[in-house]
């Protein structure tokens, strides 16, 4: 048995005020716990909906599903650049108002009876209005959902009104991460999957690098581990209230193997940050200098994964940034979405390299999530009631602690203490 000593271990769990006991498996498999998460977490926290660039001009709109709150959310940008969110529900008899995923429109007409709304939610037209009984259109606007924007990230809150502001919710993390230039925020490659696993099983899979040498040996394994760090331990872990981040290690000496002719061809004319990010290095100077990114300025840096409570991963690396969202659809199913923000390719060589990046990434993601349904099945068997977590899995522990805190707290203010 290997004895734990100061010299052969990391120190993230204790340093972030957590204990080291095995954690309960119950939150991953209990329908009752899921209902508490629904009411005490997802209906109270600020939830990430996407980037402001996804509403590129006045009149733009997007629709986002938030199954855990049983809501379809219509997000609009009006002629004064005001961004608002509404329940995508007609005020007449509850039909879904907007069926498209997004576009540009200043008015929305319900296809059931023709009720028409402006993009500020106001009801402007009701066919055969006189045959209603004292219908006050001003009282029939779309029901609004609290919306705020931080650093170009759109957040909503289903509490009416939210107990704390977005600024208070993000706290010191929101301040530390101010001023990061999000390059290429207007274009993203998007992956999606519906998986038979609890949302936390999937979020956990992307919150540690311990799995990398085993799960990704051929796709990215040699880039995340080396002789000096054979188990791909994190470089750093930090927490801010309910939020958390870890910095992963990169093998600075990675080059494509000799026989990887196409990989070499794809990267021969493009200097990309590393294999896990797509954009060219030259745009990244300002990004990389930001104090919150690669906080320790380790030369062996692959990526920072920042997990904003409850279900939003914002990841940055030398070549750019990407996001994960984990949307619960039931206690043991999840819709997972990953978006990688990469530039519009200016030439064929860049387009070729981007295809290599996306194709490798697609299989890396498949390696990650292929495991998650098996894990859920194992947890639901109740073969085990606890999971031992190592120090490199501190983010998982922190997530479970914080969710329990929100479930137990009488208020969001108490949960944030």
């Amino acid at each position, binding site marked *: 048995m290997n004895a734990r000593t100061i010299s052969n271990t990391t120190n993230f769990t204790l340093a972030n005020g957590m204990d080291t006991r095995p954690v309960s498996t119950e939150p991953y498999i209990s329908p009752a716990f899921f209902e508490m998460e629904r009411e005490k977490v997802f209906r109270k926290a600020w939830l990430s909906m996407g980037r402001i660039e996804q509403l590129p001009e006045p009149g733009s709109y997007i629709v986002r599903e938030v199954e855990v709150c049983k809501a379809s959310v219509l997000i609009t940008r009006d002629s004064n650049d005001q961004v608002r969110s509404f329940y995508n529900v007609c005020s007449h008899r509850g039909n879904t108002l907007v069926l498209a995923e997004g576009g540009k429109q200043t008015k929305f007409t319900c296809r059931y009876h023709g009720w028409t709304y402006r993009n500020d939610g106001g009801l402007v037209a009701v066919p055969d209005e006189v045959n209603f009984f004292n219908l006050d259109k001003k009282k029939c606007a779309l029901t609004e959902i609290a919306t705020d924007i931080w650093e170009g990230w759109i957040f909503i809150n289903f509490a009416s009104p939210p107990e704390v502001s977005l600024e208070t919710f993000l706290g010191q993390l929101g301040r530390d991460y101010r001023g990061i230039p999000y390059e290429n925020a207007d274009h993203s490659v998007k992956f999606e999957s*519906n998986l038979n696993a609890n949302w936390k099983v999937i979020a956990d899979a992307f919150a540690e690098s311990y799995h990398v040498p085993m799960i990704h040996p051929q796709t990215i394994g040699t880039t995340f581990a080396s002789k000096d760090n054979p188990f791909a331990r994190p470089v750093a872990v930090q927490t801010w209230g309910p939020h958390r981040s870890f910095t992963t290690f990169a093998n600075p000496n990675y080059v494509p193997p000799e026989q*990887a002719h196409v990989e070499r061809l794809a990267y021969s004319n493009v200097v990309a940050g590393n294999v896990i990010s797509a954009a060219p290095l030259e745009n990244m100077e300002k990004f990389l200098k930001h104090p919150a990114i690669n906080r320790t300025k380790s030369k062996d840096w692959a990526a920072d994964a920042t997990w904003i409570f409850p279900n939003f991963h914002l990841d940055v690396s030398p070549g750019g940034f990407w996001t994960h969202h984990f949307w619960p659809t039931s206690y043991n199913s999840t819709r997972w979405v990953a978006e990688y923000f990469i530039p519009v*390719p200016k030439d064929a060589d860049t387009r*070729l390299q981007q*295809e290599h990046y*996306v194709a490798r990434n697609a*299989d890396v993601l498949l390696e990650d999530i292929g495991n998650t349904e098996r894990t859920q099945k194992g947890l639901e068997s109740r073969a085990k009631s606890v999971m031992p977590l190592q120090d490199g899995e501190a983010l998982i522990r922190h997530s479970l602690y914080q969710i329990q805190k929100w479930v137990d707290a009488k208020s969001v203010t108490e949960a944030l203490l």
Partner: protein
Amino acid sequence: MERFLAYWDRPTTEERWRQRTASSMEEIRRFYDAMLAKAPAAMAHIRQFPIDALPEPSARLMRLCLALVNASISVEMLGQPRVPYSPYPQPVRVIRGPVYWG
């Protein structure tokens, strides 16, 4: 290249991935070997044009180069058509690939 066009020439990243993962290693390898030999010349040809205004025969060549890239994951990394131990058909979808043939 004609014999490969019908199968490997696809308009999106998602479709290229699905074609590759539905193929045998022999089929992938055959395409990879043939296309790799042509790729440097193909890319030199494609570079003559702006990427958003490729004439269709050149665009088709570009899509085959993109298919080569997808096939290379199997050949150069996995040693088999698909990621081991993962569900098939794969539950992950590429909703949107890179701009142009993504």
